[in-house]
């Protein structure tokens, strides 16, 4: 039989309680709880009130204990004097006993109990009986206690214990919910920062690939890339225009599905693939699209995109008109704008976008680009908005074009963007306008 050893309260404090008070994991949990030095808040006040009322006690507290003090997160039944801080130093607090026990502590008479009889708060607060239950962090650390105190000694009943146990658990749950909420808010903030950075990189990548076009002297060209209002929606749209060795002009517009840095990177790949497949080959636009679609499959490029390719024949007819040959893989229809403001839609039965079926049927279409006519190709952000159908969007685009028929490609692009892109545009827009000088 080991001898019964009753340490003095002070020695007890230093050897055991202090070890729990200063436990680094516990202190970390207290800090994470973000309850210290915060104003009273309703859920904890409600639990303390309930504890006091159900037990008909004088005072109820919810405390949070750091390395130095026991902070009163909720205090019911004790008035705060002006200038008084709602806290006790740990060594005069009652919560220290709960920390020590890592469980409930019930004292019937604080004046005689060896744990509490030397605690100056007994006299100061006129506390004769005390019962405290631990409030836990989600990772099982004791943050502090939910406690009730009375001016007279009392025998804590089974019901008292049950009530306090239940309310202390409710307080622990409340703490857990708050911490989970704070965690998820921090995670969301982090995610937003990462997303912003990635969106910015996408924009830089996008811009670096959208070079100024080089076209023959018989056409004027203008290009635009306008990112979405929300930076996170950048990526995937492109325009291109270049001169073939035979003098023909190739105009390309495309849109890689998705709006992020991955879409921007895939756009770069696809743009190169289309250029390489077009350049110095006798293939028609439809043949180029078929070739690109097969390459996407064969090279295992994980991309889905709408693309339209148009080729302008370098040889004009007697009136300066040139033949425009085009093919579209699921891309919104291009427009041809005449100097008098009339515009026609390059409309044909839609053909499948790229990246799905390399065997999809593709057709070429031809139209006449008269001297002074402007070919306008664009991505869906221009005509697609939540508040209207695409057909309506195309109608509005035609209305805008009717006012700028004879304008330069630069002015056509500016007018179209100014009129059609709403300020909180969700989608980015790429535009290319090419005018046949005749």
């Amino acid at each position, binding site marked *: 039989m080991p001898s019964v050893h009753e340490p003095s309260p002070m020695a007890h404090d230093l050897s055991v309680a202090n070890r729990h008070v200063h436990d680094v994991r516990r202190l970390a949990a207290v800090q994470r709880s973000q309850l210290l030095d915060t104003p009273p808040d309703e859920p904890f006040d409600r639990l303390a009130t309930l504890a006091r009322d159900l037990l008909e006690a004088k005072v109820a507290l919810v405390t949070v204990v750091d390395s130095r003090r026991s902070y009163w997160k909720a205090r019911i039944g004790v008035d705060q004097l002006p200038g008084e801080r709602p806290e006790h130093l740990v060594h005069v607090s009652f919560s220290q006993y709960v920390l020590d026990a890592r469980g409930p502590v019930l004292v019937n008479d604080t004046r005689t109990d060896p744990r509490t009889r030397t605690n100056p708060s007994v006299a100061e607060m006129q506390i004769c009986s005390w019962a405290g239950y631990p409030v836990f962090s989600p990772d099982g650390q004791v943050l502090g206690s939910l406690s009730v105190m009375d001016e007279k000694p009392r025998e804590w009943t089974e019901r008292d214990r049950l009530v306090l146990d239940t309310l202390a658990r409710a307080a622990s749950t409340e703490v857990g919910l708050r911490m989970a909420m704070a965690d998820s808010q921090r995670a969301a903030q982090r995610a937003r920062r990462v997303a912003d950075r990635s969106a910015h990189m996408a924009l830089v990548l996008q811009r670096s690939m959208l070079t100024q076009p080089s076209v023959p002297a018989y056409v004027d060209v203008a290009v635009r890339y306008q990112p979405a209002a929300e930076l996170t929606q950048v990526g995937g749209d492109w325009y291109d225009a270049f001169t073939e060795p035979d003098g023909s002009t190739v105009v390309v517009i495309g849109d890689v*599905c*998705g*709006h*992020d840095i991955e879409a921007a990177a895939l756009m770069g790949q696809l743009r190169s693939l289309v250029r390489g497949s077009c350049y110095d080959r006798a293939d028609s636009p439809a043949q180029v699209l078929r070739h690109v679609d097969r390459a996407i499959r064969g090279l295992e490029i994980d991309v889905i995109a*709408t693309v339209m390719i148009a080729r302008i024949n370098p040889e004009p007819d007697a009136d300066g008109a040139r033949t425009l040959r085009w093919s579209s893989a*699921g891309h919104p229809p291009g427009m041809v704008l005449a100097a008098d403001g009339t515009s026609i839609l390059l409309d044909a039965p839609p053909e499948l*976008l790229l990246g799905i079926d390399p065997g*999809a049927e593709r057709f070429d279409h031809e139209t006449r680009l008269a001297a002074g006519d402007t070919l306008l190709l664009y991505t869906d952000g221009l005509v697609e908005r939540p508040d209207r159908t695409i057909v309506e969007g195309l109608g509005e685009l035609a209305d805008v074009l009717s006012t700028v028929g004879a304008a330069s490609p630069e002015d056509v692009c500016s007018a179209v963007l100014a009129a059609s892109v709403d300020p909180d545009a*969700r*989608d980015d827009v790429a535009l290319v306008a090419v005018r046949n000088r005749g």
Partner: protein
Amino acid sequence: MTGDISASQSSVTGDLDPFAGDVSVFFDPAHTLILLRGDIDLAVAADLEDAGRDAIDAKAPIVADVRSVNLIDSVGISFLVRLAASGKEAGTTVSLRGPAPRVAELLTLVGANDLFVWDESDVAG
């Protein structure tokens, strides 16, 4: 049945943003239902990817209910098109439960409407 599901879930997500996108998958021996609601865009891209993979893996005919889609962008459209292509490869039928004129318009525009069977009957299932 689907009406009940969306009603019970809207109380959870609907309070914050009525158009917040939501992707739910319901497995049934007879078919796999993918319910798309709200804005189907980049914000739900990861959910779409999971839903598509799980639905194909389930090997039952796939029904994508797009009646409650508020807005769909290229992310959503490419999801549907990929789903149809994967379904075809795996020998699984993919049908769309409508009506959903905006979805149909966009699928038509990208030349992909032929990949789908539309079911616009009122029968729940």
